[in-house]
């Protein structure tokens, strides 16, 4: 049986949602009605526009509460494949796993690509000291980690990965405005494919606005969003290498 869930304000299935948005119209009674009609147009009912204010002569800001009847089947919701690894294995367990199953060090190359200068995210995953009480990949006994830093062109990343015989590429993308990250990530995969090397590396993308879904769509093996840690990625990479080996 479907397990339908709807938003909860103060009673089960009341469907209450808070919204805020700007409209490119002047503030005033007509603007408020436009806001109400907009919310109704998005399929909500019982819309109350509880606040409106002029942002400028031509723009106005609205806060609204409304109800929805449209629930979803909770069973259709999927935990992000990559984040299923969440807390799956600890650093020691992963080292042990690699030793036991692969019997050799895993080589991982990471970088924040394109013009993106945000190093903190990739550092959080790779640097010795790690992040939020999770050590980074450099500390793993069975991982050889190379962190190329930020502003790294895709070509250089691939070149370097070839040089050190990498098993996996970790790519961080933080700036997403105008979908610049999509371009950067797509380019990497296309370059690899053009060289016939896509199969050679496990490719992982990460960043606060990157989800597993998006990453997979763009041709990566997985994507890791905010709140992910080195052991999530390490576990994923290790298992993926193993399963790739089996597939062959």
């Amino acid at each position, binding site marked *: 049986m479907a397990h339908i869930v709807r938003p909860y*304000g*103060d009673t089960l299935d009341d469907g209450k949602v808070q919204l805020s948005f700007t409209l490119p119209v002047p503030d005033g009674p007509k603007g408020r009605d436009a806001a109400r009609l907009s919310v109704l147009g998005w399929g909500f009912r019982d819309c*109350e*526009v*509880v*606040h409106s204010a002029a942002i400028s002569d031509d723009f106005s800001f609205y806060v609204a509460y409304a109800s929805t009847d449209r629930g979803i089947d909770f069973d259709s919701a999927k935990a992000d494949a990559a984040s299923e690894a969440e807390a799956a294995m600890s650093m020691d367990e992963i080292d042990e796993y690699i030793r036991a199953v692969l019997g050799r060090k895993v080589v991982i190359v990471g970088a924040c690509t394109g013009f993106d200068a945000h190093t903190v995210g990739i550092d959080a995953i790779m640097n010795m000291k790690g992040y939020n009480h999770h050590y980074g990949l450099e500390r793993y006994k069975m991982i050889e980690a190379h962190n190329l830093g930020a502003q790294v062109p895709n070509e250089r990343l691939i070149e370097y990965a070839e040089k050190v015989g990498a098993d996996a590429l970790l790519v961080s993308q933080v700036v997403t405005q105008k979908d610049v990250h999509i371009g950067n990530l797509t380019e990497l995969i296309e370059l690899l494919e053009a060289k016939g090397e896509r199969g050679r590396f496990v490719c992982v993308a990460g960043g606060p606005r990157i989800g597993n879904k998006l990453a997979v769509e763009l041709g990566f093996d997985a994507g890791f969003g905010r709140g992910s840690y080195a052991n999530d990625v390490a576990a994923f990479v290790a298992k993926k290498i193993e399963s790739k080996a089996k597939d062959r």
Partner: protein
Amino acid sequence: MRKKLGLSEEKIARGRELASAIVAPIMEFVRGYTTVTVERATLRIAGADGADADGVPVPNKIVDSLRSSDSGLGDGALLRYADAAERSALPPEALNARIAEGFDLASRPVADAAAARRKAEELVAAGLERISRNKRRREEKLREFAGRNNDPLLYLIVATGNIHEDVKQAQAAALKGADVVAVIRTTAQSLLDYVPYGATTEGFGGTYATQENFRIMRAALDEVAEREKRYIRLTNYASGLCMPEIAAMGALERLDMMLNDSMYGILFRDINMYRTFVDQRFSRMINAYAGITINTGEDNYLTTSDAFENADTVLASQFLNERFAYEAGLPARLMGLGHAYEMDPSIKDGFLFELAQAQMAREIFPEHPLKYMPPTKFMSGDVFQGLVMDSMFNFASKATGQGIHLLGMLTEAIHTPFMMDRFIGLESAKYVMNSMSSFAEEIEFREGGIVRSRAAEVLDQAVSFLEDIEKRGLLDSIAAGLFAEVKRAKDGGKGLDGLVKKGPAYWNPVEAELERALGIGG
């Protein structure tokens, strides 16, 4: 608590003196009267409970039939109930059931007065022992979980109308850090001259205060308390036409706090003033005996009158509420005197005026766990701005060492809180208060600055205001609209017909025992 305002101790003493002088004639009057709900509360402590098929509670059936009988209520109701218990040899539950089915106490005069008295004393002792047990249990748990509550206590309301839905929301709130959960009553329960019976699932803007609802919520909060190792206080409203009864029910079910004000019902619910003064005393004696903290309602003044202009009426009312509370045997540590952060947000330095008011209350009432209410009046549909106002309030509260902190809701102007509204309120308050935790110890207010001057000015005004009231008398002052800009006629308002002059044979062992235990002469 370090004093920082340099307030005149003399002025403060003068305020207290005036409050005593104002309250004395009221107490004089009060001691000569009982009310229908004082009698019902007495009966409840002795074991009267339940309701008939139409929902009329047993205590009401007893009191109503006595009132309309020849004997009237002048002798009190308890002796008749005890006589019936004695004669029938039934335990209270069975006797209650018989009364619910139609058995009329008034139909028979008391058989053996001495035996009835003994029975009454026995029943009362059992009720009071249950209350004492509750008090001991609370104290034990507070000791066991000492140091686990927030300071100030974070207080949240639930108000779904359905006690079972309330339970979910209350447990969620408690899990996330609330120290106090108040179940808001349904709109207008204040005006019912009876307390509904049983678990209820239909209310408007709140949930009926019933003894069963108290019990259900108490159990739910105790469950979270054990899990979190943090005692969760439960609050309701001993207010309106049934102040003493609700106090009794709360005492029997281990509530920890009660909204309970000496004048709120008069001013904001148009309840008759004589009735209210009699009821408030009895209700407060019960609260005092049960170790229940009262929360007074000064915040309500600021919803109808301006917080900057009328700050002095809040302080004056605090002096009066304190005096009335002492008269009922409440120690300072159970007096959650109320005030509120209701300054117009557009006032320059409004935050400093609020700091002055809160710090002043803190210094004048140093042992009282002041109850500080969030912005409500100037909250609007702009939930973002509202959240920021609440944050300034959270800051002011922690900065001045308030005791009981009602969490503001960003949706205050829109609806009774959604579950997420409460969550946002809690999380943001915890962040602010932790982030400026030692602020109160850190800072001094400059001599001659805005904060000190404002506090001194409000104290001055409050003392003049009390002087004026003393001259006119409290009843006439209320009639003249001196409080909250509301005028109430002395013999107007609801519930006057429930006021009863005590007869020469009036007998109430609950009252006597409470007076004795609390050390307040009858």
